[in-house]
């Protein structure tokens, strides 16, 4: 049984560009959350998707947007990249809302130059 898979694993982008990160949840999971983790810090919640809708959002600007597909997979889009967006982006899946036992992927390391 595959766990949470994210692609790509590493990415280098230039300031001002746009990026799309992808996540496939663990089999049987229907809820996907995205986190940003800067070096030396804990993961910070970006947003959560359930039934193809954004259910909760953290303190991130509108440049960060997402989508969940009918098969529960998800995308994170970041527009107008800034140097400060360089971080490890983590996707987590869980079964149903309100479940704090989440399974994380290995993350996508985004570097903005």
């Amino acid at each position, binding site marked *: 049984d595959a766990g*949470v898979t994210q692609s790509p694993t590493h990415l280098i982008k230039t300031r001002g560009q746009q990026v799309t990160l992808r996540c496939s949840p663990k089999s049987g999971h229907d809820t996907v959350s995205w986190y940003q983790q800067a070096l030396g810090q804990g993961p910070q919640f970006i947003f*959560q998707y359930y039934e193809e809708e954004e259910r*909760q959002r953290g303190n991130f600007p509108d440049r960060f947007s997402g989508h969940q597909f009918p098969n529960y997979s998800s995308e994170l889009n970041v527009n107008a990249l800034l140097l400060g967006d360089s971080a490890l982006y983590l996707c987590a899946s869980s079964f149903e809302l*309100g479940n*704090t036992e989440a399974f*994380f992927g*290995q*993350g996508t390391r985004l570097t903005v130059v």
Partner: protein
Amino acid sequence: LAKTTQPISMDSYEGQEVNITCSHNNIATNDYITWYQQFPSQGPRFIIQGYKTKVTNEVASLFIPADRKSSTLSLPRVSLSDTAVYYCLVGDRTGTASKLTFGTGTRLQVTL
């Protein structure tokens, strides 16, 4: 939103028992306490979760006193591979949604 406080770092020798304490004075009635482990360049991994008293699984034990204002993660006989960052979280539930609020965690270093 219940905030958690835990030590920034801890050191241990291999084979010892490690106890990491987390304080969460403002925990809400419906909140659960959850611990995650994270190795470098990997996503966090769920370790254990509890509401009150004691919970034990194959990896760790979680002790929660009656007032629930703190909790202690106990790792029996640690090995070098337990070197990681450990996060204590209090379940943040808004309606039926939930998000995990991570602090900076406790960096555990295990040596021979």
